[in-house]
């Protein structure tokens, strides 16, 4: 199947002759396109009659038929209407079909945004995002108030199920991660404090840092990544399959049915996980202090009792439900904004995690300022 044998164009007396042969199907389409292009770009011959002889073409599919049509149209435009001869009868319909198509212009391709344009859009989007978030918070609060009026509509089973998924099943990984963080913290503290002979202060550092900040932060970030993304993906795929619309037309409020149980589950689970996580970090710190720093557990506990007060513990725990609310609301909002495509689901899941973590850290900063100003 040398490409040249597919289409041969030559002058035959007064007539322009194109002789096709071989297999005019998709496998040879690239070569055939070349030949057709060459034939149509050749200088216009001084003739008014042309013939396309296809008796040598063994097989043809839409690719071949389309290219034949291209050749025919090009020559017709030059004012030489070619006759097509020798075509196998079974391809007649196909050729006819192809001569019908391709007369409309192709639509403009979708435009890719330029960088500057995208930057502008992003800025506007941030504004819109903030407004949507406030809207969603409003809708959630309204749903909670409505539910308060008729508490029996609260989906208790659903909430328990969610607590199991975001709370109970997260316990092992939370314990592991916070334990390791506690270990690392104590190791670093001992390593650096030892130079000043102040090893024992590592207990103060670990205690205060874990209870006030790290416990709740690590747990919130873990939960944003683990459960926030799951919420977004679940609600998003429900949106894609019109399940959310189905709820709405049956007269249910999707926020009430889907969002509230998930939100309450987080509000309950996250403080508990924070507590568990903080304890686990303290255990990690204590163990490292014992084996690496030679601080006996009894000494560690005595020192811990002096170093921390109930305030430190409260500061951490008070923050937990707020973090839970932020994570839950952002995750559910992003989930309900998913459009029809798999790509949109991915984009919103990413956005959910990134925004939740960002807001968790911003909130933590605001809380730090607040607690400092009330001397807690």
């Amino acid at each position, binding site marked *: 199947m040398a490409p040249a044998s597919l289409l041969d164009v030559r002058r035959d007396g007064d007539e322009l002759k194109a002789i096709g042969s071989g297999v005019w*199907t998709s496998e040879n389409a690239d070569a055939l396109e070349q030949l057709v292009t060459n034939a149509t770009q050749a200088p216009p011959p001084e003739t008014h009659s042309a013939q396309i002889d296809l008796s040598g073409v063994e097989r043809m599919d839409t690719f071949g038929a389309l290219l034949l049509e291209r050749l025919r149209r090009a020559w017709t435009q030059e004012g030489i209407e070619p006759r097509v001869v020798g075509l196998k009868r079974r391809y007649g319909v196909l050729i006819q079909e192809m001569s019908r198509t391709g007369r409309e*212009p192709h639509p403009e391709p979708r435009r890719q945004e330029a960088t500057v344009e995208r930057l502008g859009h992003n800025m506007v989007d941030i504004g819109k995002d903030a407004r949507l978030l406030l809207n969603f918070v409003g809708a959630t609060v309204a749903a909670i108030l409505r539910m308060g009026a008729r508490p029996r509509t609260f989906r208790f089973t659903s909430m328990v199920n969610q607590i199991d998924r975001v709370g109970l099943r997260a316990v092992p990984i939370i314990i592991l991660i916070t334990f390791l963080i506690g270990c690392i913290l104590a190791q670093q503290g001992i390593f650096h404090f030892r130079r000043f002979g102040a090893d024992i202060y590592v207990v103060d550092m670990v205690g205060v840092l874990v209870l006030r900040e790290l416990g709740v932060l690590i747990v919130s970030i873990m939960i944003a990544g683990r459960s926030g993304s799951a919420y977004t993906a679940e609600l998003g795929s429900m949106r894609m399959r019109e399940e959310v619309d189905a709820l709405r037309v049956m007269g249910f409020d999707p926020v009430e049915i889907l969002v509230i149980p998930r939100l309450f589950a987080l509000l309950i689970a996250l403080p508990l996980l924070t507590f568990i996580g903080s304890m686990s970090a303290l255990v990690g710190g204590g163990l490292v202090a014992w084996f690496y720093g030679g601080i006996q557990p009894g000494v560690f506990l005595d020192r811990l009792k002096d170093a921390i007060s109930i305030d430190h513990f409260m500061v951490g725990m008070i923050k937990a439900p707020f973090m839970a609310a932020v994570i839950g609301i952002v995750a559910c909002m992003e989930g309900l904004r998913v459009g029809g495509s798999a790509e949109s689901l991915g984009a919103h899941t990413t956005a959910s995690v990134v925004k939740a973590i960002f807001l968790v850290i911003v909130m933590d900063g605001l809380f730090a300022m607040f607690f400092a100003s009330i001397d807690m």
Partner: protein
Amino acid sequence: MDAVAGQDDTDIDGKRDVLISVRDLVVGFGDRTILDHLNLDIYRGEILGFVGTSGGGKSVLTRTILGLVPKRSGVVEVFGQDLDTLSEEQRSAVERRWGVLFQQGALFSSLTVKQNIQFPLRENLKLSQALMDDIAYAKLEMVGLKTDAGEKLPSELSGGMIKRAALARALALDPDILFLDEPTSGLDPIGAGDFDELIRTLQQTLGLTVFMVTHDLDSLHTVCDRIAALGDGKIIAQGTIETMMESHHPWLRAYFHGTRARAVRSDR
């Protein structure tokens, strides 16, 4: 080139050329057997309608032929070759020769319709962008869509348009055989009728062989050359619509002589 032997003679008569043969096929999930020693032939150039109870295993058979569901035993031969014995390369050569229209269309949601149609072209052939565009738009027009649908995303299409766009993608490589799983379900009767008409036209234009799972009595009457009925994991009857109407099998009697069937017949 053995793989494509016989591709040429779409209009032979006399002895019928078997494109796909299923022998003694057993498929099950867990301890449930769905297909139980099933035998079926699909002949070149025909439109075979495949009927059966909902949940009877029509989709399972289709997916087993396509190699998406593992079988317990039996042989599926496509174009005279047992898929199990083929090398990776030979297999993908076979896969290029069939087109599949999934029940929900299964268009890639992140690509435009045009890119969806060009996807198999891009992966399998080396073509210029201009030719790929021409081909994509020609296929779109062949399935009855306007060219401006080409730049739309699947989420921007109606149900009927999704089916047509997915059909255009299934036809992208000019397959020999087309598998359709309930192509007209979810379409209004006029849309369904148009779609049947389209399948008929395409079958004649492209010399296709069509395997069509359907519930639509209208389709069975108007476009199918032959019908096979699935019951209890076996083919309980096959033949023309007349053969089906004469069958004494209780399910077939209920199906072809029920109230809906009478309504269809009195319409014509």
